[in-house]
């Protein structure tokens, strides 16, 4: 760390504004595609850039890049899901997580369905899967973002995958044999 010295905040402030002008669509696009709501994406983009400004003001940014901004945005997204999770907890009892199902699952996902399923999962499962699979972060980094140990994150991921799989199969393969054309409408 001793070799890394942050540039003077003065120049970095302008640099952040320039970065804002060029990279806002990337940060916003990252958030909007993951949270599925323009209003939430706007809030989180605001939080991201204002947090970035604070970090720059305190001379804490070694390398001011789009990748760094996306990292900040990722934390804001996780924070958002954490808040959502607390709200969900206060509404519904937890513990209804499905039992782990370790059969190999080898299908090709329909992405539209997959994102729909993802949006319907509990916030903790949604964050874990988003970071691990949409953002393709290694488990260690997912753990860092979520503030959990790697072991706990592994467990969470297994449960999240199972929850996803159950919901996905429910949606794409309705119970019973064969499609139920036009029924239940």
């Amino acid at each position, binding site marked *: 760390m001793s070799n890394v010295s942050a540039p003077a905040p003065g120049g970095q402030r302008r640099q952040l504004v320039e970065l804002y002008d060029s990279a806002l*669509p990337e940060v916003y*696009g990252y958030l*909007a*595609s993951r949270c599925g709501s323009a209003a939430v994406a*706007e809030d989180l*983009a605001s939080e991201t850039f204002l947090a970035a400004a*604070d970090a720059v003001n305190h001379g804490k940014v070694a390398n001011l890049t789009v990748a760094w901004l996306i990292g900040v945005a990722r934390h804001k997204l996780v924070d958002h899901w954490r808040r959502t999770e607390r709200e969900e907890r206060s509404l519904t009892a937890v513990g209804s997580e499905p039992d782990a199902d370790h059969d190999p699952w*080898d299908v090709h996902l329909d992405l539209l369905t997959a994102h729909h399923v993802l949006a319907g999962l509990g916030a903790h499962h949604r964050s874990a899967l988003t970071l691990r*699979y949409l953002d393709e972060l290694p488990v260690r980094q997912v753990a860092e973002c979520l503030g959990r140990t790697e072991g706990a994150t592994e467990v969470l991921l297994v449960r999240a995958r199972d929850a996803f799989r159950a919901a996905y199969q429910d949606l794409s393969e309705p119970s019973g044999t064969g499609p139920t054309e036009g029924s239940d409408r």
Partner: protein
Amino acid sequence: MTGHDPFDELAMPVERQEPRSSFARELRAHLLERLGLDDEPPPTVQLPERKRTMSTTTPAPAATATTVVPYLAARDANGALDWYTEAFGAVEVMRVVGDDGRLGHAEFTIGDAHFYLSDEYPDIGVHSPQGLGGTATSLHLTVGDVDALFARAVAAGASSLGDPEDQPHGNRHGTLVDPYGHRWMLSQPVEDLSVADYAERARGSGFEVRAPDGDVAADIPGLAGGESIPVADRPGTGGGIWAAVFYRDALAGIRFLVDTFGFEEQLVVTGDDDRYVVHSELRWPEGGVVQVGSFDPDRPSHHGYADPADDPFIQRPGDQSLYVVTADPESVWERCGRAGIEVVSAPEEPDYAPGTMGFSVRDPEGNVWSFGSYGLGADT
């Protein structure tokens, strides 16, 4: 077990997505504030500066003598200053009157042009045209409506040396001498003409038109020293797009547009029976023109179509929807209220344009008219 993990298919690279522009603007302002930086405009396309036309009502900006200022001398300069105000709509900036009543110095503007003025003081070499019996210098003013201003000056006592006429150099201009002996050329650009075009026209006239190679603006109005005013910016025509709107009873339609909305009748051309409007021009005072025409299903169109519904230039009454930009939609709304016409949408502040208001009404033949302050320049 295969190496394939369906979850790997979820990978979602970051894709750019434009947020709402108003959000982007606001967040940028917050960011600058948080960083303690001065507000500077966001990078935008550099628009050309708005061309200004002479206005006889708009006060000129504070004088900055960065350019040559004609310093006029006149016998009875106090009277001359009053005359310039009356005839040219000059705006008096200041006057310095001596104990002997003579005008020692005065400053005034006409549109964007600045002038100084004093009485004649022959003993120190300040001569007036009347003292000299002539003047060696003409004052060339680029104006928005040469005919109107020329007529106003003549009515106020100027002598015409040549009424306004379109000239081969692309300007319509006239020359007059004011009651104090100064010679004025009032000039209104009417064509965007290159030097080459002018040279071509001047062939055989006894004059050869030349411009230094590769230099000097090619536009004659600019060369003349005044600001080049594109034809489209001239008062009288206003906007560049003229909308057409049709009525079964076009004369009643014109009456309605003038009396209720406040359009100004500029030109109405009727056919043989005085009821069929072939062409008309109604000017919106703040700019823009609508052309009202007749739609008469029982007679051939004036373009020669037996059934006017086949005439591609004619629309059925009630098919049009037009938006008129105005700084004062409230007044139009009040007039509409007095006329008791159908309201399509009541006045409101649109969420896309805070601080503006607009409304929509239907005219007696069903055309929809919207009026609003959205679209005004930021400087108005």
